[in-house]
């Protein structure tokens, strides 16, 4: 089971729900589950990076999730 934590900026799109636990094998299925539950989230998270167990990826669609994976959506970071 993976747990997704929604930041303050995203809870406007989840009706105030701050976390969601889903039973999915990969990030791709997790994204599907999240956007099916909260359709308004699709646009804002499309341009965000995804942190899986502390590691931040740009597009980890096919990354397998662990039994207790923690997911965060974080803004993509520009560097110099």
């Amino acid at each position, binding site marked *: 089971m993976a747990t997704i934590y929604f930041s303050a900026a995203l809870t406007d799109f989840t009706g105030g729900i701050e976390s969601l636990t889903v039973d999915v094998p990969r990030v791709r299925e997790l994204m599907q589950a999240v956007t099916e539950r909260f359709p308004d989230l699709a646009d804002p998270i499309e341009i965000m990076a995804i942190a899986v167990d*502390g590691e931040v990826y740009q597009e980890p669609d096919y990354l397998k999730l662990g039994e207790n994976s923690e997911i965060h959506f974080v803004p*993509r970071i520009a560097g110099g």
Partner: protein
Amino acid sequence: MSAERTFEYIGTRPIRHDGLDKVTGRANYGADFTLPGMLHGHVLRSPHAHARIVSIDTSAAEATPGVKAVITGKDIPKTNAKLSLGEAAMELGPMGDNALAHDKALYEGHAVAAVAATSPEIAREAAEKIVVVYEVLKPVMTVDQALAPGATILHDDLVTKGKPLADAPKHTNVALRMELKRGDLEAGFAAADLIVERTFTTPMVHQGYIEPHACVARYGEDGQVLVWTTTQGHFIVRDASAGILGIDAAKVKVVPSEIGGGFGGKIPVYLEPLAIVLSRKAHRPVKMVMSRDDVFRASGPTSGTKVRMKIGAKKDGTLVAASASLYYEAGAYPGSPAGAGAMCVIAPYTIPNFMIEAYDIVVNRPKVAAYRAPGSPAAMFATESVIDEIAQKLGMDPIDLRLKNAAQEGDSAPYGPKYGPIGLKQVLEATKAHPHWKAPLGPNQGRGVACGFWFNAGLNSTATVSLSADGSATVVTGNPDIGGTRVAQAMMVSEELGIPVERVRPTVADTDSIGYNDLTGGSRVCYATGMAVIKAAQDARDQLCARAAKIWDVDPSCVAWERGRAIPLNGASDKEPLTVSALAAKMTATGGPIVGRGAVSAPMAGPGFATNICDIEVDKETGVSRVVRYTAIQDVGKAVHPSYVEGQMQGGAVQGIGWALNEEYIYDEAGHLENAGFLDYRMPVASDLPMIDTVLIEVANPLHPYGVRGVGEVPIVPPLAAVANAMAGATGVRFTDLPLSPPRVLKALSGA
């Protein structure tokens, strides 16, 4: 990652392959390239900070002998296209409008037309003949002006993205508002014994790269485009130019020159789309070079900022609550690093209750570009100044206060995920143990310390490693070498194959000659492209083992690689080990050329932390200050080439010191930049500063085979507050506005 691995080449200090060319002036930079029949481009820029373009008459310019093409915004298509360039989505519409204005000039220096002619002088004279009729509008120069009720609006269609306030006006200059929060802020501050709240400002400053923007473009009759340019990312130049102009990216080849500094400022395109369009119109190659004046007025500075910071602490130094509001100038189009600033502002500390808001605000200044750890220096200037004041008021050692609250592995970052292995505590302990921290101060001197944080990017990289018949090797990547990455890549090949560094030739290839590489930025090249290089070298090594098996006529499982040789295992123990040279000499007989390939999409490297100690001496009669001793301490993961890691730390410290002490964009009331040159925009030079001492802490990054994490950006984060805290120690005045230039210091000391 093998924490116990011992290295033969990693951690040594060989001479860089591009060193001789660079110190002798033989290296070719952006402006060095020429072609037969080449024309010279010149850009006409707006004299107004904010004006509607009513009409442009180019007839006189076009009639000038020697002029071959004139373009205006009408020649640059308006587009809604975006480019996913890894670090962030780039909006190509604003980038094209920034390159050549369509309807409005949004800052003084905004390009409104361009000319290509047979000489630079003719091009400039012809540009001056272009008649532009403007409807001059009121400029919006600061975040306060931009947010004021009834403020002039830069973009009629701008809406606030993110999490706008409920009562936010419909027409706005706020492009984005974001929030980060955790815990119960009110209860947190209620539990505090001490609360410090101050508002800080930092000025707009330029990256200050020595080499101005420059390029040559050739648009062929067959639609094939060649661009030679100085850039941090030639794949970005290709994709952005193609996207802006509606050209298939496959028709654009971009060749990077050597680069004389970028620091984030050479990521956007400015000249390249114009040179391509001028070349298409003139049917000849076109060269464009910015003057220093152009660089200051029209290429990426970083945001001026205003940051309100409030932190609450218990008597024992435990930080219990923080709130911050960050207001960042984006320049003429949305896209300041306010969001990154918000993510950084309390990142070094575990504070259970916080609320951070950040605003991205358009103003009539040049569109900001990235600048080394974009967003973090201004944010951390506020935090680290307040932390210093809290320590002072609690009577605590400022390093002890930071150690008490320092984030460590397993703590949740303020932006969400838990930290992996990070080195903040080790860095702070090394700072406390450094002789500098305990050294006596002289008269009129003060000492400051401050921390810094930056994320360090990952992203996409490709590399190939090819062997020659004599056993030497080439390593090819697609990242312009700004900070010594070529030699670092060669060292990685040496480490994997056992070839001396001087027998490995590193090359930065053009967009046709290597797979896709994201930019040289985000402190990512030694980490992410390094991983691609290691993969490519290991691929070549595996091929060498297979060739040895073929020579020995044994199963490949009977061959291992050890210290630059294929060695026989069980079943082949009667064979003599084969060196790289011996195997390379047999390439043709054993299967042909050996080419190793590596490609990665790397996660972010894991954050970097640094502290700086600054001693400053102040002449209280003149307000002039001088940094007399400076030490930078940083968790670098693993220093592949320590000299270039130290160079990054020293360079970042110097840029941060300049930001703290003297650098600033100075505008008059009409929005005209008054100091667009190095005589009036005062950057530190070598004679201004002492030797910057460095201490490298190596807390291995588990995501990299050698433990490497990014090192190039975090060095610029601590200096702003380290200098200001030292100034507070020397003068007894807590400065909240940068720069700490002599007039400002003198004014504060005189109590005016």
